[in-house]
Structures are given as structure tokens and as C-alpha cells.
């Protein structure tokens, strides 16, 4: 039996360790699950063994023999094959060409492309995957996501100069239907039976339990647990993933404050709201309350927050914000005291080339300006300086472009913007992703402070610990449906994760 050993993998980004001395042993014929929360180091690990990112330290042994792994070419030579989350197919090319992508095409007399042979090879590879329904001559753009996945897999089967020894699949079922997933699993079992090792990265506990022989759980860049799946069991995996005890921070706001604010009108009230793929949203947010939204990845968290900005069409139910119907768009939302920290810092929040001041004051320009829209540079700078101090921003000058700040400080700029107007409803979409521990603590403190002054906060996070640290109550979303609303007190990350998975199972 073949053994592939990755030993002592370490990698730090800008002094922040992402992987610390992780070792992983894979065996031919085995499907090995790699699990962990977001940021636990899974992606880094995959990038290292794909040769895409240089490891700070790593040794690779195949059947006891040391092999080099410094580049993607090395990985290909070693017989490693990867299916990444984003499916790299070329929609304009035919299925057959996509299967052959990156390889020299078969030629007749060394000149003309031998199309029949190309198609026959593609058809054979697809047949091995049981995908006989896919016509190799079809443009790949017409395939469903699941079929594209199979095309990528077929490409892996025919690719490379070395026989495939290891397949790495990163969240392959994220976009697949149930039937497509089932077919994929059958193929993976076949590949394993033929002697290949498979590293299977997934958030989905059920799949892992059903499919994988062994599991390795990463937490904070280290191996938290490794062993046979059946021995460890579902609960063991969840415990290993969330293991960190909740930090003993001053979580609940003073009850007296809460009681005082509870008497006032609610910040928002949702009455059986359905919008897009969201449904059954039914809750009230009191001033000073922090509501955490929990759920599997992409269960509708962002869409829920964006409802309050006036986005998405409400199909049923009633939504009231700050005593009025919801705003018609982001402009009105900010004007009414609704502030957003978007999920994607680079794509949705920051103007990287513009200054700290420009980024902070943007939604508040209307208030800061004189009549006729004449800007007051000094008032803008004052707001930026005050807010920078409040969020403990580390910067050189207010005029420096935000792209020159570290990730955590960039996120603080986004917070400074959101908090500058003293919002009455603060929407936080995974607000501390990729933020270091110190900055994260600072940001949490700001959120609690704002709530203590009577604002309502709605928070999503891929980090369950964060949800429980900040949230007073937790709303569980399952495929867009409100599956539960529970007080955060008494919940642990394990019980919450269990509840999320149970909600998912009920939905399925």
C-alpha cells in the first residue's frame, strides 16, 4: 500500500502563523477528510501541497522516498491532482477540449488536431466517472455545475505525465445536487479502490462520516485531531473543530441597560418575511440587542443583512426598520442610521487607492458638507481622526491610501466608517474575518459599546465562537429559512454547530 507523507508543514503570513508543524499521512486506497473552521489553515495546507505557495518548512515522502515539492510542476510530477473550489473550465471550448486542457492535443501527422481521437479519449475518461450522459462535443458552458465538476475530474484522470497518486478535492459538493454528489462519491470510491489516495476537504459532516476512512481536523493552524472517522465520531469532530473555549469576555451587556432599552421601540421588526431564497424570517431586535446569524456557509446570511439596505424584493411578510418601512436603497439606509460592514473587504467595502479619510467619511459626506455640497476638508479630517482613535487604528497619516494598511487595520477603517454616524442599526457581515486576535478584540469591544448605547446589531460570522461571544441571541438559518431563534446564553460552539447541522438535516 502506497504512503504519502507530508511532514512538518509550516507557513506564516506576515508574522501571523497560518500553519504550524502540521503533518499528514495519506494512504493509497483511503479517502482522508480534512476539516476545520474557516481560517483553520485548510486552504494554506492545500496551497502548500499543490506547490502554489512556498512552505516555510515541509518534507514530502512517497513510500518513504523524499520528493521535492517547490512548484506546481513538482506536484504534477509527483502525481498530485487538484480540484479547486472555483472550477476552472473554459465555457467556449468543447467538453473534450476542456478535458484535454493544458495538455498537447493529439495530432494527425503531427499537424492537424485529431478531433475524433480527442473526443474518444474524453468520452473514455467521462465513462470512467460514470458520466456517459455528457457529450464531449458540447460547449462546456452549457453544462450544469455538477457536470463541470465531472469534466474537471475527467481532465485529472487523463492529465499529467505521472499516474495520479493523490486527488485533492476542495469543497467539491458545495454546488452539487444530491444526485450529482452521490455520483461523485461513487467515483471517488472507485478511484480509491484503484489505489489512489484522496484528500477530501469539506465542511459537511454527513459526507465526511459516510465517505471518509480517516479524518484530520485543523484548528488555528495546528492538527487538533487525527484518526479513523468511525472511532472519532461526529461529536468528536465538532469538538475538535471548535475546541477553543469561549473567551471569558464581558459578554452580556448590563441587564439594567438592557431592561431600560427594551422598553423603547424596537430597532427592527420582521413579520414572516420571505424575500428571494430567504423565508420565515420572524424576529424583533430591541435597542441594545445583538443578534447573531448562524448557519452553514452561504445559507443566506448576507442576503438577510442586505434586506435592511433595501436590497432584494420582499415577497411576503412585513419588515419595519426604526419605526418605518425599510429604506429604498443604501443611500437612504445610511441617512437613516443603518450602517453596514460588508463581507468582502476589498470588493465591497474599501476604495484601496483612496485615503483613510476618504474611506471613513464617504457615507457621511452629506452631513459633513456645507450647503450647496461644498466639502469641509477640516471637518472630514476631524471625523477621520476621531474615528481612527476610537477604533485604535494604526496608521502613518490620514492621507495614506488604505491599501498600505495591514488587513486588520483596513477592517478597522471599515468599522470607523460604519460607527462614525453613531448608527442605530449596525449590520456586520463576518466582520473579523482575516483579522488578527488583537484587532478582533478591539472590534468586539466597539460593537458591545455601540449596543450598550442603544443601537441594535445584527451579526453574521463564520466563526461560531465570535457569534456566541457577541450575540445575545442566535438565529439559525438553514438554506435561507429561519430554522430557529435561541438565546446565546448556555450555548457552546459544539452545541451550536450541532444545532446548525441538525437544522440542515431537517431541511434536507
Amino acid at each position, binding site marked *: 500500500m502506497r504512503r504519502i507523507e507530508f511532514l512538518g508543514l509550516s507557513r506564516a503570513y506576515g508574522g501571523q502563523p497560518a500553519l504550524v508543524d502540521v503533518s499528514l499521512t495519506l494512504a493509497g486506497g483511503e479517502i482522508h477528510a480534512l476539516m476545520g473552521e474557516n481560517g483553520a489553515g485548510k486552504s494554506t495546507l492545500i496551497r502548500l501541497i499543490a506547490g502554489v505557495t512556498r512552505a516555510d518548512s515541509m518534507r514530502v515522502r512517497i513510500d518513504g522516498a523524499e520528493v521535492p515539492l517547490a512548484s506546481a510542476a513538482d506536484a504534477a510530477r509527483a502525481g498530485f491532482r487538484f480540484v479547486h473550489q472555483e472550477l476552472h473550465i473554459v465555457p467556449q471550448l468543447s467538453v473534450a477540449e476542456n478535458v484535454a486542457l493544458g495538455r498537447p492535443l493529439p495530432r494527425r501527422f503531427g499537424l492537424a488536431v485529431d478531433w475524433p481521437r480527442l473526443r474518444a479519449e474524453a468520452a473514455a475518461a467521462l465513462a470512467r466517472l460514470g458520466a456517459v450522459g455528457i457529450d464531449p462535443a458540447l460547449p462546456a458552458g452549457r453544462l450544469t455545475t455538477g457536470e463541470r465538476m465531472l469534466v474537471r475530474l475527467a481532465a485529472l484522470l487523463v492529465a499529467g505525465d505521472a499516474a495520479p497518486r493523490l486527488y485533492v478535492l476542495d469543497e467539491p459538493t458545495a454546488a452539487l445536487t444530491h444526485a450529482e454528489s452521490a455520483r461523485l462519491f461513487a467515483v471517488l470510491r472507485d478511484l480509491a479502490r484503484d489505489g489512489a489516495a484522496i484528500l477530501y476537504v469539506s465542511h459537511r459532516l454527513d459526507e465526511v462520516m459516510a465517505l471518509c476512512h480517516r479524518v484530520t481536523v485543523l484548528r488555528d493552524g495546528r492538527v487538533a485531531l487525527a484518526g479513523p472517522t468511525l472511532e472519532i465520531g461526529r461529536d468528536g469532530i465538532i469538538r475538535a473543530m471548535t475546541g477553543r473555549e469561549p473567551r471569558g469576555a464581558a459578554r452580556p451587556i448590563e441587564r439594567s441597560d438592557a431592561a431600560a432599552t427594551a422598553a423603547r421601540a424596537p430597532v427592527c421588526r420582521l413579520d414572516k418575511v420571505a424575500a428571494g431564497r430567504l423565508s420565515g424570517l420572524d424576529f424583533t431586535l430591541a435597542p441594545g440587542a445583538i443578534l447573531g446569524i448562524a448557519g452553514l456557509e452561504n445559507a443566506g446570511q448576507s442576503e438577510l443583512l442586505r434586506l435592511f439596505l433595501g436590497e432584494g424584493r420582499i415577497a411576503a411578510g412585513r419588515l419595519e426598520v426604526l419605526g418605518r418601512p425599510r429604506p429604498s436603497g443604501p443611500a437612504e439606509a445610511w441617512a437613516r442610521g443603518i450602517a*453596514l460592514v460588508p463581507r468582502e473587504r476589498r470588493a465591497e467595502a474599501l476604495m484601496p487607492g483612496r485615503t483613510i479619510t476618504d474611506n471613513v467619511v464617504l457615507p457621511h459626506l452629506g452631513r459633513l458638507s456645507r450647503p450647496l455640497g461644498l466639502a469641509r476638508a477640516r471637518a472630514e479630517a476631524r471625523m477621520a481622526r476621531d474615528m481612527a482613535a476610537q477604533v485604535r487604528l494604526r496608521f502613518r497619516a490620514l492621507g495614506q491610501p488604505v491599501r498600505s494598511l495591514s488587513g486588520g487595520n483596513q477592517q478597522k477603517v471599515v468599522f470607523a466608517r460604519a460607527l462614525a454616524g453613531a448608527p442605530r442599526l449596525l449590520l456586520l457581515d463576518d466582520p473579523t474575518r482575516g483579522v488578527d486576535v488583537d484587532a478582533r478584540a478591539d472590534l468586539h469591544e466597539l460593537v458591545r459599546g455601540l449596543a450598550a448605547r442603544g443601537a441594535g446589531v445584527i451579526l453574521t460570522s463564520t466563526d461560531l465562537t465570535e457569534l456566541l461571544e457577541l450575540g445575545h441571541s442566535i438565529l439559525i438559518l438553514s438554506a435561507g429559512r429561519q430554522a430557529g431563534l435561541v438565546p446565546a446564553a448556555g450555548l457552546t460552539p459544539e452545541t451550536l454547530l450541532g444545532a446548525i447541522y441538525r437544522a440542515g438535516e431537517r431541511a434536507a
Partner: protein
Amino acid sequence: MRRLRRYGTLIGFAGIVAAFAVLLPDTFLTTRNLLNISQQVSMLAVVAFSMTLVMAMGDFDLSVGSMASLAGVTAAAMFQAGHPVPAGILAALAVGLAGGLLNGVLVAWVGILPFVATLGTLTMFSGAAFVVSDGRTIFGRDIPEPFAAFARGGVEVAGVTLPALTLAALGVFLVVWVLLEHTAFGRRLYAIGGNAEAARLAGVPVARLRIAAFGLTGLGAAAAGLMYASRVASANPTQGAGLMLDAIAAVFLGMTMSEEGEPRVHATLVGVLILAVLANGLTQLRVDSYIREILVGAIILAAVGAAGLGRILGR
């Protein structure tokens, strides 16, 4: 050193001026010639300044040249039909504003890329200019004397006559400068240019501002078309065509002067002056007009390329 990189284009400009001053000692750095240059470039300057508005958002407008032509022939056709000068001017500016707003609507609401949308309206405005003028040059008695006299006139300050066209361009410069540098409107335009989606989520009414900015650019193009028609005391349906590429070139030259590659209107002014000084000086040096064009193009590429290279290497 960082500053020197930013000021590379400015230094290049100073070098060009110095070179001409040496090579043309008697004629180049004279008040008359400098006023001439300012007047010669005034129409291009107005187009480039207003083009800076849309380029601040990361968009651009290819239709400004044909809009300038259209505005010119619109005014001339009004004069021909016996309307007074103010009516002709107002009609031309209204056409400019409407055309610009159309561009804005196509980009912001219909969602067509600015390149494609304004390429389409470029053709439309050009066709409209031919329709309005019947394909002919409107000149001679059809152009009222006061209208043509504007471009020849000026304001005397301390013994020097500042050309009216120069003053008009300075006026437009001031307006655009205040808009871009000193109003919430300008800050929001730059925010859109920095990251349109982020700006939208931060409450910037992106679509409305786009339409407004394109409208102003159309208005500026129309003003330039009127200045052109006044200067040549005539209007024909293609006379503004050359303005568009030069205006974009001027803004690009200006963009090489900012750290983040943002179009700023004072930098655009330098870009405009570089083009004007080159045309004036090289003519005086009797450089063949076709060679001159090759040289001007090469200089634009050199400046933009050098700045781009600097930015890449600086990463």
C-alpha cells in the same frame, strides 16, 4: 525620490518648455506666444476638464468630439434660422446636456459599458450634426458678427489682452476644480472610481451621480463646440472630431502625475498644456506636421508608460 516619480511628467513638461525656450529664443517665451497657446488650447482644455469628471469615476466619454460638432452646428443652424445669439447658445448647451445625460442613462441604468455606450452616441451625435447642418459648413453671413467677435475679443489687464477663449477655459477649469476637489459630489465621483460597489454600499447614489457627471461632460463638450465655432466663425458637422482623442490623452498625461493614477483636473491642465506647447513649438521649429503627430503620440506613450512602469516596479 517618491516625489520625483510623481513629478516626472511635470519635470518632462518643464524640460519641453526649456528646450523650446533655448531653440526659439526670440519667439517662444513671449507674452504674445504664451497667450496664443492659451487661446489655441482653450477648446481642447474645456473638453479635457469636463472629461476629467467622468474619468474620475473610472469611466470615459468617446462622444465629446462629435458632441462639440453637434453643438456648433446646432447654434449655427439656429442663427441661420434667424434666432438671436443667446437662443442659439442656449440651444447648443441644452443639446450638450441632453446628449450627456443620454450617455449617463445608457451607462448607469441600461448598464452598457461606457466605451460601447459612448461609441454608439458618438456615431449618433455625428449623424445628428450632419442632419442639422445638411452636411454643409455654415459660415459667412449666417454667423452673426457678435458671436464670431467673442473669440477675437478679450479683456485687457495691465496692458495685456487676455483672450476671451482663454478666460472661458479658465472659468470651466475653476468650476470643474471646485466640483471635483471641494464638493461632496466630487468626493463621491472619486469614490465610485475607487470602488463602485463599495461606494454604492456606503450609500453613494452611484447611478444618479454617473448620469449627472456624464451630463456635465456633455455640457462641457457643447461649450467647447461653441468656442470652436466662434473661433472659426463657422460650423461644420465634423469640426470637433479631433478633440476627443486629444482630451483623453491630456487626462492620461495628467494621471501620470498622481500617486494612485487618479485623474485630477489640475493635472489634466498640465496634460493639456503639454500637448499645446508641443504643437506650438514644433510648428515654430518647422517640424513636418505628420512627424509632429508621431512625436506627440510617442511622448504620450513615454509618459504614461514610464509612470505605469514606475508603479509596477514600485510594488
